[in-house]
């Protein structure tokens, strides 16, 4: 492995101080499940980060809080904690579901939601659920706090707009509307230790038999994650049903092609993301309260 200096940040302040000075030549390590693989891949002569900043001791950005209106998940919270949290299971079950599928047990014990978000993989497991929750990303730096809608931080695959002197400290999202139903489906090649071949998170609000709100966020489909509003709009004011959900699914796959173009994987992805979306909508509509 390439040489570097390892610095442990005992507090958020310490971490931010360090990054304000040396952030451009440093990488942050938390769970390490992505970074360690990256570092291993570097040739021994390659130029890597001068410093690795270990923020695992920074307890203040770990944990889940609910103030009744907004749920705040500390960036350093491991997936296992999120997937078993009574708060998340009750108020955002799609996120619990998403986090329960990351890698395997060993990963979920240390990999953090912050890491999953900042790594910026188009196949990130938690991101579509967070986007469907209209999540915000909270960044801190020595100069203060920056909040951004989560979907807006992504510039391109594996790249967010995080600055060298910033740490992602929390992801937060408002409670879902009353009576909202949600679901999350992940398709992997195998049932554990699997990258999302594709995934999708949906939220539906159904009042008096009609859909009043819809959110759809697919993963492993586009260069940067987003809600697919063209598909959502189709459903507003309509009754849930097979034909409607199929149209919504098709709208998602059309939008995928619109944004990503036709690629080598499109013949597979096109019908499958449509099918997964349709299925997720069904699950949400019929069970996902």
């Amino acid at each position, binding site marked *: 492995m390439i040489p570097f200096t*390892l610095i442990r940040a005992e507090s958020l302040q310490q971490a931010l101080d360090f990054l304000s000075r040396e952030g451009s030549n440093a990488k942050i390590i938390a769970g*390490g499940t992505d970074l*360690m693989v990256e570092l291993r891949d570097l040739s021994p002569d390659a130029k890597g980060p001068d410093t690795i900043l*270990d923020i695992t001791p920074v307890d203040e950005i770990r944990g889940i809080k609910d103030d009744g209106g907004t749920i705040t998940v500390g960036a350093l919270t491991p997936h*296992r904690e999120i997937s078993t949290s009574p708060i998340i299971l009750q108020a955002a079950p799609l996120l619990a579901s998403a986090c329960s599928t990351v890698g*395997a*047990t*060993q990963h979920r014990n240390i990999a953090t939601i912050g890491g999953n978000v900042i790594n910026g993989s188009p196949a990130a497991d938690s991101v579509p659920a967070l986007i469907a929750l209209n999540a915000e990303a909270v960044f801190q730096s020595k100069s203060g706090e920056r909040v951004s809608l989560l979907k807006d931080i992504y510039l391109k695959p594996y790249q967010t707009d995080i600055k060298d002197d910033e740490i992602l400290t929390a992801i937060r999202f408002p409670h879902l509307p009353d009576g909202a139903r949600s679901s999350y489906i992940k398709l992997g090649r195998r049932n554990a*230790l699997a990258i999302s071949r594709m995934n999708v998170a949906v939220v539906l609000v159904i009042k008096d038999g009609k859909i009043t709100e819809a959110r759809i966020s697919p993963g492993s489909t586009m260069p940067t994650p987003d809600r697919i509003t063209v598909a959502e709009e189709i459903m507003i004011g309509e009754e849930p049903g097979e034909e409607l959900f199929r149209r919504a699914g098709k709208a998602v796959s059309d939008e995928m092609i619109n944004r990503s173009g036709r690629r080598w994987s499109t013949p597979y992805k096109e019908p499958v993301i449509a099918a997964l979306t349709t299925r997720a909508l069904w699950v949400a509509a019929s069970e996902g309260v």
Partner: protein
Amino acid sequence: MKKLKLNITVNGISHTLRIAPNLRLLDLLREELHLTGTKEGCGIGECGACTVILDGRAVNSCLILAGQCEGREITTIEGVTPEDGLNPLQQSFLDNGAVQCGFCTPGMILSATALLHHNSTPTEAEIREAISGNLCRCTGYTQIVEAIQAVADGSKE
């Protein structure tokens, strides 16, 4: 590279070591402490042969920097082996044909140990999920699951 001072507890014994900052926990265990029971199968956290228990949870030691373990407690396969004989999980693996080549075995036992510590009455599905990060190419997992189930059932009495 300047060496880092590290205080770490492994299998109940406290150590103070000077290590390279880029040393993986896996290498600290195998090279510095000569605990070779923990194995390397892939180096990228995809096989679980390097599984150890960190603060009570199963983790892949190839994905953790030793320097991140300041003040923390690690348990390896050597740490769960009694002075004499075998612990109930080890005995159950022996009794139930759960070991063939044995390379995945230390990691499997530690994942099972962590599982049973947090959930002493797992279902078969929960057992399979707990060991889903430990690849085995020899056994097809059947007898491993049975061995863990037997310990769980035994502890119900």
